[in-house]
């Protein structure tokens, strides 16, 4: 049976500091590996910081909801916010092979998330952004990194 936990943070970068401890609690319950926890924390930091920095046209306080669940061999991280519509799946790819001096760092976070996740889904529902990120529980079996045949 799928097990899920939910929390919410305010649209302040400092509030993001609560997320890794929350992830660690869920990971301990579910027996997630350090590598999976690494990926989940990175994915949440990338997308939540994007929402906090660029998602709101006003200076008001907003609530961002975060949910984690495990279903089969997949860990699912979901984020829901009431910011401006933003579909990270539609963002232009970054050229990570460009020389250092020509690199623009913006966009790198979304590139990392798209690479770490097996699936990233976005929907705008009732004036809210809903992002769903799925990662395999055994990332090393993905893409034959360890030569799984």
């Amino acid at each position, binding site marked *: 049976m799928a097990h899920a936990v939910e929390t919410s943070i305010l649209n302040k*970068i*400092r509030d*993001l*500091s609560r997320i*890794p401890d929350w992830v660690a609690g869920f990971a301990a319950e579910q027996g997630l590996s*350090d*590598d999976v*926890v*690494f*990926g989940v*924390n*990175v994915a949440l*930091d*990338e997308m*939540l*910081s994007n929402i*906090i920095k660029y998602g709101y046209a006003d200076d008001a306080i907003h609530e961002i909801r975060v949910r984690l669940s495990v279903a089969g061999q997949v860990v699912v991280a979901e984020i829901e916010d009431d910011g401006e519509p933003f579909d990270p799946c539609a963002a232009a790819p970054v*050229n*990570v*092979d*460009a020389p*250092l*001096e020509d*690199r623009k*760092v913006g966009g*790198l*976070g979304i*590139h*990392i998330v798209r*690479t*770490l996740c097996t699936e990233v889904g976005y929907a705008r529902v009732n004036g809210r952004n809903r992002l769903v990120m799925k990662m395999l529980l055994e990332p090393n079996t993905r893409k034959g*990194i360890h030569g799984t045949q």
Partner: protein
Amino acid sequence: MELSERKDNDVTVLEVVGRVDSVTAPDLGDRLTSILATPPRRVLIDFGKLEYISSAGFRVLFLASKQAGESGGRLALCGLSAKALELFSISGFLKLFTIAPTRAEGVAALR
């Protein structure tokens, strides 16, 4: 994230313990800026006790690398786990930094 510094000959070894993300990366950036502002501007960042690093961390490493390049300083990294190296690779940063397996090799690479 906690930072601790020690000197190994001319090299400042900066050990990073914990999480490098949107919340903590600015502190790492400030520390690197400060180390690289003073000769001999040699810094080895030891990531042996890193929990994870996100693009906010890559951004400060990128800026520190630029600062080093412009001021005759040098920057190297050591102690990265396989997962951390995967993130460096995904981000295209693997080939942009001197990366040593151990602290001793990192110090040697900077001397």
